[in-house]
Each structure stands twice: as C-alpha cells, then as structure tokens.
C-alpha cells in the first residue's frame, strides 16, 4: 500500500495559544520575547504583528516602534514542544502514528486512515476545521512522502493535497526552502539564482553533493521518495490494539461497560485465532474536551476469555471520569503470551482443572486491592528467622528446597521483636519469669538455648539465643537474648513470637 503523509504547520503556534486563553487579544499585535545577549528579542509573533513588519529575531525595542500598541509576553524555551505534544495527542484520534515536528509542526502517517472519514479531502478538511475552530491558524499538506508534504504545507500556493505519485511535479515550482534546508544553504542557493526546486533538481547528484554537501542531497531524495524516511511516533504502536469511536458521546456507566465489552470481544477473537492470551492491557479513553485517561488490568496467566477480562475491567471502571463525554476508546495489550489449550497445574499435587479458576480469582483480588497484596512464600536457605521464607509474587514458582521441620518455629512472629524484661537465675539458662506488656509470666517449662548467628555478610549485629518458654497457663513464647550475657545491661531480652 503506498504511504500517505500529512504535515500540519501551525503558523502562529504560541500567539494562537495565547489568544485562545485571552480572547481580548484577537485584534491586537501579539509577540513573545525572550532575553538574548542582554536585550529582548522577538521569538514569536502573530499575523497582525507581521503585517506591521515585525519578524522573528527582531529586537523588541525595534518592534515596539514599528507596531504601536504591541502586546508583549515572556517566552519560555520549550513551551512550543509542550503545546505540540498536546496537539499530537489530540491528533491520535485521526491516526495512531503521529510525530512531533518542531518548532511548529506535526507529521502524521495517514496510510489507510482517510477512507474512514470519506476520502482524503474530507479527512483533511475535518482535521483542519476542528483545529481552526479551536483557534489555531494551520496549513496542512498531504503527499506520498514526508518531505513533500512538509514543503507543500509551508510553501505551496494551492493544491495542498498532492495526488498519489504526483509529488515530483508538485515540488517543481516550490522554492528551495520547501526542502527543509538550513538557512545558510538557502542563502547560497539564492545567491546562485536558484529560486525554484526545478532549477537544480535535474543536476547530477555528484555535482550537488560536491557543492552543497550530502545533507542537501539527502533532503532532496527524501522529498522525492528515493530515500527512506521514518517517523518517530509519539506513541509506540501496539500490535494488539482495538479502537472504538463513538458516534454519540458516551457519558453513562452502562454505555462505557458496553464499549469495553465490545472492545474485548473483538480483541479476544483476534488473540484466540493466534493462540495468544492477554497478560496486561490498558484501556485509554479520549474525552471531547481534549483530556484523556486510562485504566489498566493485569492477569496471572494468559487469558482470552471475555467474561474474565470484562470482570477485571469492571472493577476499575470507577476510576473512569467521562466528564462531558467520551468519543474514543482504545484498548492496547501491553503484554501477551502464548496460551496452552490445557493449563498446567498450579501446584504439583493438584488437579489441573481448577488452577485457572484460582488464577482468575487472584486476578480479581489484585484488580480490587492491588498486586502487592498477594504473596506466596518459598523456603530460603537462611537460619535467621526473618529471612527463612522468601516472598514471591508468582503463583507458579515451585520451591527449590524443602521446608525445614527439624526445629520448632512459632506460628506467629512479631516483626520487629518486642523488648521484654526477663530474669534468669544463671547466665545461659532460660529465664524464670518475664514481663511482657505489664503482665508477669512465670516460666514453668523451657527449652533452649538455640543459638542463631547473624549472617555477618548481610548485616552486622549480635547473635541471638532463643528459648521456648511455657508459662503457668500453658502459653508458649519464643524469647531470645541478644548477644552474650554481661551481667549489667537490661533490655537484652526480646519476645519474638507465639507458639501454637
């Protein structure tokens, strides 16, 4: 399919933006000025100021003399990029491939998009009309190559839509500035009397390259479509993506739910036919007031079941703010995986049939309260109690070693350990009584010590001597003394857990 590109030139991007904000400036000369080498220089001007003779690069003092009643605003470097980014996002409703073209333009790859709005003329007219209604003075150009569309938008008198294959003839009458050349090159061409592209386009490439450098030849070949040129899209295209444009603006919850259902049905049909399952997806909605937002879901195992995915989205729909109305929904899959027809078992000793149900349950829980809430533990090769179980998010990971059962461990572990007061008759013997939270516990039976050394290669500190202590009511505690007994210090004893 032959490529088609649109270049949009915002003639007065910054001043138009200011005028939209302050409609009273509509019939006044407006300029933006920035300091440069100790003086104020005009960086952007509107049509009225230009009529007076103000141009970019002029000193502000001069401009004030030429144009009386000049409205001056402080310019900020990089503001045009911010504006362009917003406008490029707005243009995503026309095509998924939009690139910024600083200082004041956008480039769109519209291949295969124009018929959706009834042809190239209607497509371009719709886009420019809406931009003009917003208040931007735009000039579009459409051609087979990026370079030609750029040149036509900026320099052509008429014929802004160059027919397929006609870009060479369209370029002929244009001035050299239509080729995206630097200013010094343009002055050189001017001095040589080359006012039209047609006056040098037939020259041998080697001659042009010797005199003007290889960049100029490259630009010319790009405009003619003899050299490949690529757009750097604002948003990476996603391989599995669905779009749903709404004729009527959508505001109500049932309508949004219906839109999500429709998108998922289309997407899942595609995924199913290619044997893929969805792991993560994002739904973006575009509102008519130019704002947009998105909601995301993730699954624990690849799935192409509409009901399940719809349930996950349904939990997040509370965060969708339709405002004045939504005109476009877009569903992008950010992560897909091949799905096996028969799911392998979640855990070894388990029938395979129910693993999918559990994974879907965990997806729903994660959708409601967040992914971080779901934990599993695998054995870790550490004696230190806090480290002997390793957390994992995956529900499929299998333990690499066995759980240790040779030492008693408490069912409940306090983190961090709580300080207690304890009395031991002899050093290195279990305490005879301890006080925890103001309650006195007499130790009737005890076992220990079990010394656990701190892993010095991970953290510094004292070792611990653990005792199991059973009090007068049969309650059991895991208490430890930190470090060696030295007879002086109090607060050496800690309670670390409760046994069953």
């Amino acid at each position: 399919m032959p490529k088609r590109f649109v270049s949009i030139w915002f003639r007065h991007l910054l001043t138009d933006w200011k005028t939209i904000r302050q409609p009273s400036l509509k019939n006044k000369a407006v300029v933006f000025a920035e300091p440069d080498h100790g003086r104020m220089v005009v960086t952007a001007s509107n049509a009225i100021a230009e009529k007076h003779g103000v141009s970019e690069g002029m000193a502000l003092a001069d401009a004030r003399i030429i144009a009386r009643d000049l409205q001056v605003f402080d310019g900020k470097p990089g503001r045009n990029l911010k504006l362009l980014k917003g406008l490029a996002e707005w243009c995503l409703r026309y095509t998924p491939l939009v690139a910024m073209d600083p200082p004041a333009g956008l480039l769109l790859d519209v291949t295969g998009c124009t018929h959706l709005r009834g042809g190239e003329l209607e497509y371009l007219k719709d886009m420019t009309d809406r931009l003009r209604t917003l208040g931007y003075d735009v000039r579009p150009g459409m051609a087979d190559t990026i370079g030609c569309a750029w040149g036509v938008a900026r320099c052509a008198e008429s014929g802004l839509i160059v027919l397929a294959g006609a870009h060479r003839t369209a370029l002929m009458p244009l001035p050299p500035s239509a080729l995206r050349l630097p200013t010094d090159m343009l002055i050189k061409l001017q001095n040589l009397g080359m006012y039209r592209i047609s006056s040098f386009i037939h020259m041998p490439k080697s001659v042009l390259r010797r005199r003007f450098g290889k960049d100029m030849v490259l630009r010319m070949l790009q405009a003619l479509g003899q050299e490949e040129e690529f757009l750097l899209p604002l948003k990476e295209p996603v391989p599995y993506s669905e779009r749903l444009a709404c004729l009527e603006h959508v505001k109500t919850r049932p309508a949004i739910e219906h839109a999500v259902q429709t998108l998922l049905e289309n997407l899942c049909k595609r995924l199913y036919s290619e044997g893929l399952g969805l792991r993560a997806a994002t739904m973006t909605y575009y509102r008519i007031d130019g704002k947009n937002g998105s909601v995301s879901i993730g699954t624990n195992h690849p799935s192409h079941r509409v009901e399940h995915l719809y349930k996950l989205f349904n939990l997040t729909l509370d965060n969708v703010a339709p405002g004045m109305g939504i005109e476009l929904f877009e569903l992008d899959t950010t992560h897909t995986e091949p799905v096996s027809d028969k799911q392998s078992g979640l855990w070894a000793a388990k029938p395979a049939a129910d693993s999918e149900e559990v994974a879907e349950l965990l997806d729903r829980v994660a959708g409601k309260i967040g992914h971080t809430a779901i934990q599993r533990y695998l054995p870790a090769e550490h004696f230190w109690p806090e480290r002997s179980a390793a957390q994992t998010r995956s529900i499929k990971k299998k333990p690499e070693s066995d759980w240790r059962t040779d030492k008693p461990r408490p069912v409940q572990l306090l983190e961090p350990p709580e300080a207690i007061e304890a009395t031991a008759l002899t050093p290195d013997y279990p305490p005879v009584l301890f006080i925890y939270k103001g309650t006195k516990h007499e130790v009737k039976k005890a076992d220990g010590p079990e010394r656990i050394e701190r892993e010095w290669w991970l953290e510094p500190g004292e070792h611990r001597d653990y005792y199991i202590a059973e009090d007068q009511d049969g309650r059991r505690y895991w208490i430890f003394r930190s470090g060696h007994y030295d007879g002086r210090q109090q607060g050496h004893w800690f309670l670390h857990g409760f046994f069953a």
Partner: protein
Amino acid sequence: MIAAKEDIIGKLRQDILRWEGFRPPKPGEGGSFDLGPVEEAFPNGVFPTGAIHEFISLCPEDTAASAAFIAGLVKTLLGHGGACLWISWSRRIYPPALKLFGVDPDRVVFVDVPLMKDVLWVAEEALKCEGVAAVICETAQMSFMESRRLQLAVECSHVTGFILRKEAHKLTTTACVSRWKITHAPSQLKRGMPGVGFPRWQVELLKVRNGNPGKWTVEWSKRRFNPVIIKKQQIKHLRRYA
C-alpha cells in the same frame, strides 16, 4: 410401630440437615481429621466441610493456637488438591511454621488486605471459587448479615471457610456452623524429661448447629491431632498432687 416412627423421624432429621447445607461426604473424598470425640459433636459425627467455622480469640497467644488448629484442619482439606487462601488485614503468621502442622507453606496464597473493610469482600470472592479448598479469613468484626453472605457463598461452592476473629470481646450472632475457642493447655512431659512437650490445646465448641457443644483437650503430635482423654484414675491422681 414405634420403630417405624423412629425411622421416619430419623429420615426427617437427615432431610433437614441436608436442607441446611450439611452433606454427607462423597465416598473417597472425606479424609479423616483425627479429631475423635470432637467430631462426634457434629451432626452425623462428621466434621462439616463446605461450611463456615468461626474461631474466636481474645489475645495474640490464642490467635496463634487457633491458627495452628486451623492449619491442622486445612492439612486434611488440602489432601485432595485445591488452593488455600489466607486473607488477613494485619498478618503475623510465620509461614515456615505451617509446615510443622502439615500444610506446605508454598501452597498457601497470602492476601494482605490494606483496608479492613475489604477483607470480607475478598473472603466472599474466594469462597465462591470452586478451585479453592480452604479459605482462612482473619478479621475483627463480622455482622450477622456478612456471615450469612459467606455461608450462602459456600453452600454453592462447597469451599470450607474459617473465620478467625481476633480480639473478639463482643460475641455477635452469626450464621456460621460452629463457634470454636482454642486456648492453650499446659503440655505434659514424660516424668523426669526436661524441655516442653507437644502443643496441647483446650478446644471448646461454644456453638454447633444441630450438634452438642463441648470441651476437649487435643494434642498435636506425630503430625496429627490426638485427642487427650484423661481417665478418671488420672484425674484422681492429678487431684492428689494438685
């Protein structure tokens, strides 16, 4: 004639139990819980699976005892496959200890809910899922309506649910099948042996639907429950030395 009447009454009793959600275990499905006399307290003498059990605890020590007792029950439930979810709001469970009570800690999925009000939502979703064998839910409050919702969820899905109510100073009416209270009992050692003995609990069934509440002492040893029956002579013996 009298015998026929008793048959009819017995049959009606069974019907009522079935309507109330008690089902006799399918052949080959019900593993033994080794609870002996405790199981006798339940209708038909079978520990009801596919129902909600409530455990109350007043202090963290009791919570530890209840958690271990539940783990001992879950061990049998997991014997036939399925997942186990441990839903809590402020969790202190130390996973490696579950292995001592026969549950593989890596088969348990822990859900740490940041807000307490979401605990019961997650529990209900989990109880509706048929691939789950057991759900343990730690919470502080549960109203009658919430317990009813959970009970209705398990009646369809046959999942067994355990509600562990921490700091339950106020007891409210619930729709649960039973209400347990597990407290510590002093362990017994063979005469002259040092150290501490096997975990031993005072198991109290405060409420059983269609059953008989009671009080027993149960010990966990040799990887199973061992109900301790204190013989009359021993009581006399103990009294003498008390």
